[in-house]
């Protein structure tokens, strides 16, 4: 079978804004109108050939080969003006403004092409094989590595279908093993890998004429290549004891090599970033879901679903010219937290030799490491140009004293849902949770320690400000208003355990007996739902899940009472 496919994906984003005289900014500029439109179109053409055949009846094959080409055309323009006589024009009469005009536009064309093939093999639904091979080319890469080839293979073994398993069919109704290994490519670098000069308004004359300046805006990286994700997957689907317990288990190992990233090169270059392949990361983890029909007895049913997942993302390789800070390691977690180890609050009379400028009420930092230094006292490096440390205290708090505190990823994410029904009643409740994580309460550090904002601006603050360290209140738990003035900051002082279990949802329902309303209604159901009824956590902030910045909006608690009626 031959198939020809053509597609157009048209994306148009437009923003039409007007700041009227009645707004603060609009009044300053006498009305400000702006129109921005962005056109992002892609045109795809794809041809495939598909051919199925059998060998001796039970060996089924399916072969597919294809070729595709996709063209991306992006256009952007923006125009605006200020100084309008009346707000009535909105953005519809840009020429009628006397003020600052905005004129901008841009455009780029890019191309991607692929050749691909796939082979499917199926033997009596017992053995399944899929093999694919694709070669992709992207215009964005510079001359040397436009093309790359990505193979993949997936194997399936339906164990329960085997003849030797037929005796155990009552116990194990489904058992399927899946194994896959494959590569995919990524060419998303935003722009392209060629050198270019940029032109922009650079100079204003005394007569207020603008002159255009031109300087290098992008460096060429002739060796830039496709980023490759190599993923190995092991899966197991099972159903046992008359489908009483079923579930699936996935184990994955994903390696992203030749990571595409805007890499800093030596900062003395005018353009000191270049798109480059900067190393390799690995993500390993598992996902487990289990469904259990706990009780099915007459009118009573109780079903529970569990899910667990965990992953670990680490660096495996870095760019050859990687310029680490002294506390960074080659194999750090991808979202690593490096911090000083705090050592309590300095009290009056304390002597902190490693931090001579520390004032009482500020947080002490543990001196655990130091630079190896030459005879002039300057830090020395190894053959890769990375700074060496001694591993022992040196009487100075510097970056060597930072340690890998952990990662901002949770160690385990888990969920549990329950469904109970008895006659016309139903009860559902779901828990979810994250474990093995640490967090700083951003509201506390912003508004709960320092009284400086109150003093200087009359800001509001949290009540905990009253407990802060002062000479007459030598607190050991709340530092002083000026804790942030210490050169080394607070270290890990404010980190808290932030695991949590949340009752995400609970819902109780009652289906009204149909004889109550005869033929008028089909069904009527009364229910009470509650979202986010409680959270169990040692974390003292507002919400362990959403507190990633100051005054983040927390999960809300909702209670709903409802009646569903179907006619």
């Amino acid at each position: 079978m031959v198939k020809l496919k053509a597609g157009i994906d048209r994306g148009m984003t437009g923003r039409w804004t007007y700041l009227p005289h009645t707004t603060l900014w609009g009044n300053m500029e006498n009305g400000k109108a702006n129109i921005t439109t962005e056109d992002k179109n892609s045109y795809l053409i794809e041809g495939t050939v598909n051919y199925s055949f059998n060998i001796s009846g039970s060996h089924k094959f399916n072969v597919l080969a294809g070729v595709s080409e996709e063209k991306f055309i992006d256009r952007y323009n923006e125009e605006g003006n200020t100084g309008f006589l009346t707000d009535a024009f909105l953005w519809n009469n840009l020429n009628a403004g006397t003020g600052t005009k905005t004129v901008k536009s841009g455009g780029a064309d890019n191309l991607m092409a692929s050749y691909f093939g796939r082979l499917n093999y199926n033997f009596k639904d017992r053995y399944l094989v899929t093999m694919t091979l694709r070669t992709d080319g992207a215009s964005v890469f510079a001359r040397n590595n436009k093309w790359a080839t990505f193979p993949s293979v997936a194997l399936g073994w339906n164990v329960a279908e085997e003849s030797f398993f037929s005796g155990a069919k009552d116990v194990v109704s489904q058992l399927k093993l899946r194994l896959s290994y494959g590569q995919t490519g990524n060419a998303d670098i935003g722009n392209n890998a060629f050198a270019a000069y940029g032109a922009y308004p650079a100079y204003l004359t005394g007569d207020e004429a603008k002159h255009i300046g031109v300087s290098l805006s992008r460096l060429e990286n002739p060796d830039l290549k496709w980023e490759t994700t190599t993923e190995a997957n092991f899966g197991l689907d099972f159903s046992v004891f008359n489908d009483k317990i079923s579930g699936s288990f996935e184990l994955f190992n994903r390696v992203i090599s030749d990571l595409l990233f805007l890499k800093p090169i030596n900062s003395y270059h005018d353009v000191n970033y270049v798109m480059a392949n900067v190393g390799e990361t690995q993500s390993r983890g598992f996902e487990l879901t289990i469904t259990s029909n706990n009780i099915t007895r007459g009118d009573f049913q109780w079903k529970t679903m569990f899910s667990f997942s965990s992953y670990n993302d680490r660096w495996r390789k870095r760019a050859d010219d990687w310029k680490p800070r002294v506390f960074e390691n080659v194999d750090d977690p991808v979202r690593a937290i490096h911090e000083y180890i705090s050592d309590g609050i300095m009290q009056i009379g304390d002597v902190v030799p490693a931090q001579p400028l520390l004032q009482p009420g500020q947080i002490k930092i543990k001196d655990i490491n130091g630079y190896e230094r030459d005879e002039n006292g300057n830090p020395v490096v190894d053959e890769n140009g990375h700074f060496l440390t001694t591993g022992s205290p040196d009487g100075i708090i510097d970056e060597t004293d930072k340690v890998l505190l952990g990662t901002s990823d949770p160690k385990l994410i888990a969920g549990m849902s329950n469904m109970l029904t008895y006659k016309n009643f139903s009860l559902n409740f779901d828990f979810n949770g994250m474990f093995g994580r640490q967090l700083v309460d951003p509201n506390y550090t912003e508004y709960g320690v320092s009284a400086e904002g109150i003093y200087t601006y009359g800001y509001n603050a949290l009540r905990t400000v009253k407990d802060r360290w002062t000479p007459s209140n030598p607190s050991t738990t709340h530092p002083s208003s000026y804790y942030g003035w210490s050169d080394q900051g607070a270290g890990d002082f404010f980190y808290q355990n932030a695991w949590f279990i949340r009752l995400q949802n609970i819902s109780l329902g009652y289906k009204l007996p149909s004889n109550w309303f005869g033929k008028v209604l089909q069904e009527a159901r009364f229910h009470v739902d509650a979202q986010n009824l409680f959270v169990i956590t040692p974390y003292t902030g507002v919400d362990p899940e959403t507190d990633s910045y100051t005054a983040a909006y927390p999960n809300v608690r909702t209670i709903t009472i409802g009646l569903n009626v179907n006619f």
Partner: protein
Amino acid sequence: MKMKKILFFLMIVMLFGSCTKDLNPVDYSDINPSIFPQSEADVEAMVYACYYPLRGSWWDGINSTSERGIMFVLDATTEILSGKFSVQQYGHLLNYGPEDEDVTYFYDGNASTPGSGFYNKISRMTLAISLIEESKVSDEIKKKAIAEIRCARGMLAYNLFDMFGPIVIAPLEVLQKPMVEKPLARLSNEEMVKFIEDDLNAAAADLPLPGETEYGRFDKGVAKMLLIRLYLHEKQWDKVLSTCNDIQGYNYYSLVPDYVGMWDLNGAQNCPEVIWAIPCNYEGTSENQWQLMALPSNYAPMGGWATVQSTWHFYDSFEENDVRKTMLIAEYTGTDGNVYNRSNPGDNIDLGPIPLKINPDDQRSTSLSTVDIIIYRYADVILSKAEAIANLSGPNQEAMDLVNQIRHRAGIPDKKLADYSTLDKFNDLILLERSHEYWCENGQYRADLIRHGKFVSRCIEQTGSPYATDNKVVFPFSRRAVSEGKGLFIQNPGYN
């Protein structure tokens, strides 16, 4: 069988396709390097790109009149400016370290903004000079363009040298191979001074005479003025003196009677005292936003953000009737009808008066002003000459006359040589006079204090800051700059 034929056909197509297909991207907003630079206009565009980092702009212009410009940050380390947050607060206490991007920004930018910072713009200029030399335009065009770029490079290099001490200057061979990893060490003090001096001398030789070029562009006067700065920094008094004489020899510059008027809406243009100013307007290819930074929000008729104040200490150091003091606003009636002054300062003048060394520009409708940014004035030549004479041959009447020229224009009585007969006393007089004359212009008072050994002691006297230590006379480099130097790049003392 038909299927197989089609498959075979397709494979052939693919084979040929992959050989002939060339995937070329087009970005219509870029200029392809193989066709640039070709013409005089191209060369001119490269010169403008070298002026670009030296203009005023919060985003990427080093002479911004905001916390992202040198004047603001440098004056904030002295009694001229102070504030309640950010660099105008901790800088005022000399409490800065390698983590403070507000100061390290000037060298290698913000870690989060690719390509920001200023020392890499020196490399832009180095590459531009080389490209222009290789281009096919006439020698005359080359000479003028290169002179301007070398003046720009000398100016930028001096400004960074003044802030950080010697810096990394990347040689052309290294810049031409950006994909080759090459950590570089900072220059020695001697090499740094020579680099700046060579650029400025070359620029001074080839640039047009003052008045013979467009307002805002570099001329011999600008290059010589920068040389004076460099020689003052190095205390090469004889060279300070001869360079001052060179500038006076142009017979172009003079002191204007109206000090305040230079910061009027059109005060700088056509002013014979201005050596270099940056043209600005409301649309802001080049930006002056000083009113926004300095004025309180309740200032009539058009306020600002009150980010910065002067100090009462500085205010009190002026003599009575000094016209330069009138630009320090010590009393104003707010839009709320209240009168704010030293005894009722509110939140906006409690540290010191409003440092409004600029026309309030009531007509500004955006955050920007049309008043041009004055960077160098002839008055600087006069006081520099006085300092050089005194330090070469002891205080004498010639030096005192020069000081009195400046005082006379400011409307205050002459000083008598007899009262300033020792060099220390005379230097103190000059230091005080320089702070009064050049506050909120280009931040040079910090260098003046350092030159006279008073930078740290002055801060301790006035603020009692425990952070004021001797190493604070140069700013720290970011940790990133040290890391990428791979052991060759040595951080300034006390910041390790």
